Each structure stands twice: as structure tokens, then as C-alpha cells.
């Protein structure tokens, strides 16, 4: 019921927004969705990965290629797109989580770079530098979903992702993830299969990023390589750190804030808002490692 209420509220808003604000709103919701998934991997399970935007891109490109180059029906395209994400995630995670330390970070960094190269060099399949454009969401039961109604689809994605991760976090699996983050040796002594927990957390959050990518593919009705590169992967990491790693609410606040901040900053500092982000991240790490949500808790406790 709570989730349904949140969905209705979020989905109602765009009906009162203009086209431009609706577009900003949609992109903010997508960032929040991605940040929620990344927070589960980085903040809750303690695994550093840079491939989240690569999976976002794998989801987006797969669904577009499957639908419009291979003429696969939409439901099957979605299933296959998720399957591609899962296979790639397993292929990266299984070898790299067997080793302690930074191997997952390195492997995902390589994957993120490789993916953008593949997109640029993919010829007619990926459309190269220009990507793929001039398609639109197929009609579902004869209905064309667009405008604020498509924003409702994004709201459903966000609320669904939140509900899924919230439930997982409060289960034995979520506790196992936190235990793996805090002390892998003690986690293993408690019977937690550390490597397997990491693989599941990585694969699950990567698949969620892939699903978000599929939804993104029909926001602008174009997919092109720069979106899915490392810049955005790092921005996602910043969002989670600034908001408060390990907390769902922190991911929401961090993502919304860092996404919206450039709109307010650009009249003042132009395109140098990245500098402000850098300062924010350093400040968060040095002064408030629990992020904005930690600051919020602190203020609530002391008042």
C-alpha cells in the first residue's frame, strides 16, 4: 500500500509539468533508480564497481537492437535484454570476486571502457558514434504510451526497484551483504558464502541497471555512446557517497541533489559544476562519511 501511494504521488506530478520540466523530472527519476541499485552494491554489499552505466547501456542497446533490427516482440526483447545483462554480469563477477581486493573494480572499469569502444565501433548494429535514433516504443495492446504516461512507467520502475531492494535489505540476504562488507572473514565463519553473495549482489544490481536502461531507451527515443561512459559511472558513485552510502534514502537524496544542482549552478559557474561536485565529495568523505542522510540523522537526534 505504501509503495502504491508513493507511485501515485510520483506519477501524478508530471501531469502538472510542462514538457521541459517533465523531461528533467524523468531523468532525475532514472538517476535515482540507478543510485538505489548502485547503493545496494557499493553501500550495502561494499563492492566497488564502475560498470553500472555499462549495464544501463547494455539494457538500452539490447532492447533497441532486438526490437528494431531483429524484430523481436517487446516482451521477449525485455526478457532477452535482462538475460544479456545477467550473462555479462556473471562473466565479470565470477572470476573477479574469487580474489580479494580491487579486482572487481578493475574488471568493471575495463568492462565500462570496452563497452563504449564497442558501441563506437559497432558499425550498423550499434550505429557507431551517432548511436541509434528514429524509433519509438511499440504500441502495447494498441495503446501508445507517451508524455506523462511514459513518466508513470519510469515511476513504476523506481518504486519497484526501491521496494525490491528494501525487502532484500531487510532479509537474511541483506544482512549477509552487510556482513560481507564489514568483515568477510567473520561473515564466512557465520556460514555466509562470501564470493557467492558478492556475485549475486553484483548480478542483481547490474540487471536492475539494465532494466532501467531499457526504460531510458524510450525517454529520448535515441541511444548514443557518451551517456554510458565512465563519467556518469563516477557521478553515480559521487551521488551515493554524498547522499550517504548504505542507506536507500541517502541514495535518493544524493541522486536528486547532484542531478538538479547543475541546473541551479550553471547560471553562476557555467560548466564548472563538476568542480563543486568534487568539493562536495571530498567534504562528505572528510566531514560526514555517513553523507547527507547521516547529517540529517544527527540534526534530528540533537533537536
Amino acid at each position, binding site marked *: 500500500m505504501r509503495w502504491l501511494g508513493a507511485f501515485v504521488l510520483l506519477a501524478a506530478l508530471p501531469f502538472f509539468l510542462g514538457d521541459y520540466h517533465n523531461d528533467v523530472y524523468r531523468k532525475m527519476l532514472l538517476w535515482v533508480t540507478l543510485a538505489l541499485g548502485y547503493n545496494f552494491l557499493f553501500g550495502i554489499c561494499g563492492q566497488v564497481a564502475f560498470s553500472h552505466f555499462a549495464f544501463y547501456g547494455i539494457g538500452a542497446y539490447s532492447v533497441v537492437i532486438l526490437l528494431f533490427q531483429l524484430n523481436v516482440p517487446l516482451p521477449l526483447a525485455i526478457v532477452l535484454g535482462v538475460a544479456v545483462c545477467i550473462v555479462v554480469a556473471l562473466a565479470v563477477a565470477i572470476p573477479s570476486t574469487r580474489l580479494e581486493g580491487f579486482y572487481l573494480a578493475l574488471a568493471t572499469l575495463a568492462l565500462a571502457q570496452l563497452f563504449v569502444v564497442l558501441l563506437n565501433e559497432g558499425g550498423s548494429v550499434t550505429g557507431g558514434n551517432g548511436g541509434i535514433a528514429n524509433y519509438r516504443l511499440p504500441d502495447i495492446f494498441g495503446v501508445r504510451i507517451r508524455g506523462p504516461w511514459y513518466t508513470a512507467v519510469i515511476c513504476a520502475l523506481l518504486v519497484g526497484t526501491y521496494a525490491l531492494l528494501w525487502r532484500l535489505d531487510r532479509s*537474511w540476504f541483506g544482512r549477509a551483504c552487510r556482513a560481507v562488507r564489514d568483515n568477510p572473514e567473520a561473515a564466512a565463519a557465520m556460514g555466509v558464502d562470501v564470493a557467492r553473495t558478492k556475485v549475486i549482489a553484483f548480478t542483481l544490481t547490474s540487471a536492475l541497471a539494465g532494466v532501467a536502461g531499457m526504460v531510458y531507451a524510450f525517454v529520448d527515443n535515441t541511444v548514443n555512446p557518451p551517456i554510458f561512459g565512465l563519467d556518469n559511472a563516477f557521478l553515480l558513485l559521487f551521488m551515493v557517497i554524498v547522499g550517504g552510502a548504505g542507506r536507500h534514502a541517502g541514495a535518493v537524496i544524493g541522486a536528486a541533489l547532484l542531478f538538479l544542482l547543475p541546473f541551479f549552478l550553471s547560471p553562476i559557474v557555467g560548466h564548472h559544476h563538476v568542480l563543486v561536485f568534487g568539493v562536495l565529495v571530498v567534504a562528505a568523505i572528510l566531514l560526514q562519511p555517513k553523507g547527507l542522510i547521516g547529517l540529517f540523522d544527527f540534526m534530528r537526534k540533537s533537536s
Partner: protein
Amino acid sequence: MKTRILEVRSLSKRFGGLTAVTNLDFDVFEGEILGVIGPNGAGKSTTFNLIAGAHAASGGEVRFAGEPILGLPPHKIAARGVMRTFQHNRPFVGMTVLENILVGAHTRFHMGVFFSKARNEEAQRRRRADELIEFVGLGDCRDADVATLSFGQGRLLEIARALAGEPKLMLFDEPAAGLAPAELERVAGVLRGIAARGIAVLLIEHDMHFLLPLAHRVVVLNFGAKIADGLPDEIRANPAVTNAYLGSHAPAR
């Protein structure tokens, strides 16, 4: 006749040229506290880590409930019903006492997260965890962040967390280390209570004054080999043990 839970046979461990444990044999029975003592460097902790799966053995055999467990990774040994504590407390920080104990119960969860029965299972495990919190005497800090616990409370948490896995055998690595006298009493009481539940207890300990009144049987190690075993009173009277601890020229106490 009590059931034999753990059988250790010819267990050996070499680190390069150093032999840490040599041809070690002993058994642990259900409901019994077996103490393993010895001076620093006797191979106590190595023995412990071999049984818990943290180190790979160089030779020998360890059977738990009749099944060989040597060579299994730590999480599989835990899943069989062997739970351990750490010499230096290793709580999961950022979680409450209750949540830490629920991690200890990890291997007792069988329901997929999204099945409706998972709620019942979670509720049942939480009730069990509450009982364990009362059993070790941490009732006042059930929902406290573990970072706020004292060292002694942290040790009790280690014990409750391991108990939550419903073990048949518990391994304690120097549970008395660093504790104040009042806390020692409390830990000793908890260990007796665990044995009284029928759980086999393997207690590695440096401190003879803590261990001898507590253990039902004692194995003494020196330089990686067993030099004596028997009842606590026999161990007290054994000159080989006194020599190992105090040197051969010291007067017997």
C-alpha cells in the same frame, strides 16, 4: 555413552620449515568442554584455524559427526554445524546486536526472500535471537549499534552470534583474553550453559586459571605436539605441564 562429535587424527601443519602442529589426536564429545592449553607458540591457534577451515592442513584428518571436514571452506564448515568465535572480537559494525546475531543464524534461513513464508521464518529467527540475547545477558543492548558495546559485551555478542547458527560444536579462541574478572565469571557461566545444552565445546585457552575449573577434559600442547591429556586435576599434577609453562627448574605449585 556420549556421542563423539569431533575426531582429530594425526593433524599436522607445516609453515615452510616450521612445524606448527604435529600428529595431533583428540576427540570432543557432545555436551563436553574440552580445553586445549599450552604456552604461547604451542600451536593452539593453528589447531583452531585448521578445524575451522581458515588454514589448510598439511596432513591428517578431522571428522565432524562422522564426516570429514578438512579442506572445506569456512562457510561450509559453519553450515555443517561448527560455529566459532574470534580471539579479537569481530562484530559487524553498523548493525545492531540483534542484526549481528541474525547474521549468525544465516545458515538456518531456508526460505527465498520473496516467498510469503519468509516472513514467518524471519519472525521465528528473531524470537530465537531474542532468547540468545537474554541467555548471554545483553538484553539491555538488543537494538544498540555494536560500536557502543564494551569489550566484554562484544565478547558475549561473539558467543551469542555463533550460538545462533545452532551448532553441534562450538570453537572458542581464547574467550578469556582481555576480560576483567567479573566478565570472566560471566563468560564462564555462559560456556557452562552452552555445554549444558548438549553442545560440544572446544576451548582454546592460554589462561590455565580460567580453563581448569571450566573444562571437563584438557589437552596440553607444547611445540605443536600433545604432551598430556586428562582431567583438569590430572593436568594440574602433571610435571610435564608445569615444566612446559614454568620451565623445568621452577618449583611445582
